[in-house]
């Protein structure tokens, strides 16, 4: 249950990050950018959406789904095997997508976005927790 508690906590942190980004985008405000200074450049680049869905919305959906699934797994709401598989699959997918977005910031946009990196590290940490918990 410890790993699910950590996954739930990280999902909640991810929700708060993405909600902040969605709010600033809707209000047409520049987000606070404590490190890097390239948040506005990255967030308004042509890579800020997949098809027509903004990345912050996709992130929020991912984190909400991950928090629900973690809660279901703790409470024991079935089908547990399927939830566990979906959680692992989505975190693997999110990890790969975050690697791609980090590459874009590094090599293509040439700017670093604090919030994007924080979200990437949140997902990578989730991946590490799943990996470690399946090994022990």
């Amino acid at each position, binding site marked *: 249950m410890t790993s699910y508690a950590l996954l739930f906590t990280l999902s909640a942190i991810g929700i708060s990050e993405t*909600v902040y980004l969605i709010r600033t985008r809707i209000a047409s405000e520049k987000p606070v950018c404590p490190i890097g200074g390239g948040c506005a450049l990255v967030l308004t680049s042509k890579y800020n959406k997949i098809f027509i869905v903004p990345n912050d919305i996709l992130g929020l959906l991912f984190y909400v789904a991950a928090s629900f699934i973690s809660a279901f797994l*703790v409470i024991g709401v079935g089908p547990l095997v399927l939830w566990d598989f979906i959680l692992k699959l989505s975190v693997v997918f999110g990890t790969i997508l975050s690697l791609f977005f980090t590459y874009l910031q590094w090599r293509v946009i040439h700017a670093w976005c604090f919030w994007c990196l924080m979200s990437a590290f949140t997902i990578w940490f989730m991946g590490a927790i799943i990996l470690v918990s399946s090994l022990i």
Partner: protein
Amino acid sequence: MKKTSFHFLRVGLAITFLWIGVLIFKNPEAWGGYLQPWAAGLLPIPLAQAMIGTAILDIAIGVFLLFDFLPWLAALVGAIHILIVLAVSGITDITVRDIGLLVAALALMIDSLPQDKRC
């Protein structure tokens, strides 16, 4: 309170309320065991149902805080909720933790009050 510290406190308290809600959902009867007999006797509904209601309230407070939606109201309800918990569970080894949560909720409520509601 500085804006950054406010958000740290808001998200931290949100996670606490959400996780406690999830844990109560997992085992409502066990959490009901913390109630003093006199308080359990006052309940008009079965203990398990009352604890499920508590879990829903905890999760609602957590969601409001996490989404930064009416944080002053969520913190106020959270503080009243913790006060009731302190009253009905009696003084135990973990009472001090509830006092910390109570004061944190009060601080959050005071800091997020709308300007027209401030003293």
